[in-house]
């Protein structure tokens, strides 16, 4: 797959992006206030190369989307008879996401397993995923909460991407080696009319990948997580362990909404104002840290406390999902749940401590 590689000089990036995104809405990181978020990019706009505060998952899986509109229609001769008409036209534009990191792009892969390739194919997700080209930027640095290398992801992992860009060289001299990962990636890259990346640049890119990987290993050697799914299940009823882990958790949804792999949603109907005969069915992000997530119609809630909810979150990512998906964990180690957490709840710590069998818990 690495056969198709091009070189983009630093100064050419904006132009190249314009070309690649022809006919598409291009999303790129933009600073808004004190956060970096993906926003539609204007033509010619110099993209920000920072890692975004929020992953780009919303481009394909929006925070809130209209699944369909419902229109109640009355029989003019008998107002007692009302029929409901649905309008499920979904307006999907071709899109391109630029500037996500490998951990972001791999998130789509986690989604794909559920919404594309699982027993049910989600038409909304599928349509957007089909229409969106993912241009990813390989990492050159290890942040203090980065642990992608623990999870099967990595600083140059191309899973979920169409094109992977690797920064090479420095300053104005520098540029990007752009490798097409998919057929669609090839086509898009072609549009940009770029020179081929020569061997030296390919080597430089390889070196960047290796250096970042090394930095990550130095920062936190990847533990062996092969026993984790089972160990987490063993820990399932260790109330003290989960109490200790969740003591400081505030039960907010920051971790889930910042997570590139969290795919849960809620469905609600909202009425329009106007004549009162119209409304919409919405699908919006939901999160398992919220008490309402599992509250049943009766009022009963199987996950009453935050300990049970946090257990589910960790268990889902590192145990239940891998058990259903060939050992693939639904965590890419992006670390956003740690940095974004108001109280720094650290998923790494939970996974490691749960994995270390018979840890010094009083009951054990």
């Amino acid at each position: 797959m690495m056969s198709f590689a091009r070189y983009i000089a630093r100064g050419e990036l904006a132009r190249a992006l314009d070309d690649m995104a022809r006919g598409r809405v291009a999303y790129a990181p933009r600073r808004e206030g004190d956060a970096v978020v993906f926003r539609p990019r204007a033509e010619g706009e110099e993209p920000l190369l920072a890692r975004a505060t929020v992953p780009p998952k919303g481009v394909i899986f929006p925070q809130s989307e209209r699944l369909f509109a419902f229109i109640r229609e009355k029989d003019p001769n008998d107002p007692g008879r009302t029929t409901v008409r649905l309008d499920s036209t979904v307006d999907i534009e071709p899109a391109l996401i630029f500037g996500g990191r490998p951990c972001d792009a791999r998130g789509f892969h986690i989604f794909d397993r559920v919404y594309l390739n699982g027993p049910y194919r989600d038409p909304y997700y599928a349509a957007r995923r089909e229409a969106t080209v993912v241009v990813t930027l390989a990492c050159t640095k290890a942040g203090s909460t980065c642990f992608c290398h623990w999870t099967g992801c990595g600083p140059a992992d191309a899973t979920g991407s169409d094109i992977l860009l690797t920064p090479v060289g420095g300053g104005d001299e520098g540029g990007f080696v752009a490798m097409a990962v998919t057929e669609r990636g090839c086509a898009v890259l072609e549009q940009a009319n770029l020179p081929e990346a020569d061997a030296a640049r390919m080597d430089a890119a390889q070196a960047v990948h290796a250096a970042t990987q090394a930095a990550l290993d130095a920062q936190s050697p990847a533990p062996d997580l092969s026993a984790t799914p089972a160990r987490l299940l063993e820990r399932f009823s260790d109330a003290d362990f989960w109490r200790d882990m969740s003591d400081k958790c505030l039960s907010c949804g920051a971790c889930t909404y910042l997570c590139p792999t969290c795919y849960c949603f809620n469905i609600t109907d909202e009425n329009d104002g106007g004549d009162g005969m119209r409304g919409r069915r919405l699908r919006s992000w939901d999160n398992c840290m919220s008490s309402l997530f599992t509250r049943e119609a009766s009022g009963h809630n199987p996950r009453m406390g935050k300990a049970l909810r946090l257990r589910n979150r960790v268990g889902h990512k590192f145990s239940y999902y891998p058990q259903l998906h060939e050992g693939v964990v639904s965590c890419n180690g992006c670390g956003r749940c740690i940095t974004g957490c108001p109280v720094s709840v650290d998923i790494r710590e939970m996974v490691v401590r749960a994995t270390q069998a018979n840890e010094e818990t009083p009951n054990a």
Partner: protein
Amino acid sequence: MRIGVFVCHCGSNIGGTVDVPGVAQVARAYPDVVFSSDTMYACSEPGQAAIVDAIREHALDGVVVASCTPRMHEPTFRRTVERAGLNRYMFEMANIREHVSWIGKDREANSNKAAELVRMAVEKLRLNAPLYPKSFDVTKRVLVIGGGVAGIQAALDCADGGIEVVLVERESTIGGKMAKLDKTFPTVDCSSCILGPKMVDVSQHPNIRLYAHAEVEKIGGYVGNFKVDVRRKATYVDWELCTGCGLCMEKCPSKKSPDAFNEHVGVTTSINIPFPQAIPKKAIIDPTSCRQFVKGKCGVCAKVCPTGAIRYDMEDQVVTEEVGAIITATGYDLFDYTRYAEYGGGRYPDVITSLQYERLLSASGPTGGHVKRPSDGKEPKTVVFIQCVGSRDRSVDRPYCSGFCCMYTAKQAVLTKDHIPDSRSYVFYMDIRANGKMYEEFTRRAMEEYGVQYVRGRVSMIVPQGDKYLVRGVDTLLGEQVEVPADLVVLAVGAESSHGAPQLAEKLRISYDNYGFFMESHCKLRPVETNTAGVYLAGACQGPKDIPSSVGQGSAAAAKVLGLFSRGRLESDPQISQVDVRRCVGCGKCITTCPYGAIEWMELRGEMKARVIETVCQGCGICTVTCPQGAIQLQHFTDNQILAEVNALCLS
């Protein structure tokens, strides 16, 4: 839901400026509306019948009537839908008359607005739920606050009706203002001759428990079940033992106690019985002047009391009474005329109030019924009466007419002539208000038979001149400035609310006006009821009143209480707040803000939650706004119901 909409023409009242059939047509398109029609008079017999028929025919489970104000016909239509088998709360009204057709002539705008109001009513109705009243027991005892003539009448009527009465009087005797009067207009009856027997009845009635020299301290509970703390202030005399013989008064060496009963004309003894006909006829010590209290030694009364009733160490005592209803008859006070500096501001001894003059006229008063002016004891020959002192005067914040001053002034002028045949009286007045039976005739007699000089105009100032007072005024009918050298000036001071009335109102949780008079429930149709169930008004506490009106109200309030108690159990209004215990987090904010104390704590599986006492809640909804998560909801006005109306208007 299956909603029916009925749009009323109200003859041409609505139909004149609203396209009524058009509105009914539009309403048919609204959600859940399965039937709509226009109707000439929805409230008429056939109009109501049509609603009942439609409910049955179309299996409606909710009805909207668009017609006049719900304040008029909501009860009517609720009964209508109830007749058809619906719960009365499955009904909403859209006010398209007072709020639409009567206030604008633009037919298009009106029709559009009417349709929107119907839409809002439909949206609210869609979220209505059937509500059911609850019933509870009643304590068949009544508290009467105030022992003036209104309170006396109310107490006697209730007691005669067979219920127990607790009568609380602030002063040491009942009788109120009327007991201080010499005669009453327009018959010039002797006041104490007609009031005295009633006072005696109070003291002897087996159903009446009288607390004199006592005040209501705290009121809890609700209609049917009030709990009242009464503070019995120390009298320093054991009234169980006191026989009212008056020996202590004869011997008391301290004779400079302010004589409140005689309106401070003169002084009295420190231990005294206010007047011979006092009920209860018991002595009381004024500790501010009594030598035993002031100087620590004396003890004369204790020595002379034949029954040994004196108790210098007596303290206040609080008793609790349980009652099912309360009648407030706290009366009025007199305007403080010293605010009028131009009338001397209290500096001129012979410028006195009408009630002081009443005491001068009274045979039981400080002068034994001989009119003598306070400064030198001389009999006045020229007496000037000034009306509207503290009435109809915005500049002293008393814009209202006190109502009875015209009449008592005429009476006093007549009595002056009776007492001092060679005297001449002048009455400065603005308008004569004599709208009672025989009242106008009485004022005419004062002028025609007694030669009272009525001068139409106000008095600007009073200036002492020698041993007379130059009264400088105007005769607006002459169009001239006038002056009268007077020996005595009597100010017809107006009525103001009894001091402490607002504080009592807050204890009773009833409203009062800007001047401290208690608010009746409806000025015309519910004149003795208040907005707090089980609390009634009698007499001048509601506004200035003369004796016949006060007595009438006393009887009316008693009739209301007897009517209330005639039912074995009471029904509570279901439009009250309700707590969703699953959502209540026990923060207690609703408990803090409830004006009725209608929310209490309860324990539920180890957690504290709020609970509404259904009979106490009045349905204001303050708690609903206070509750951050909306766990306490005012039924029939829930957040969702109001939001539905807002959204019908503002969500687009």
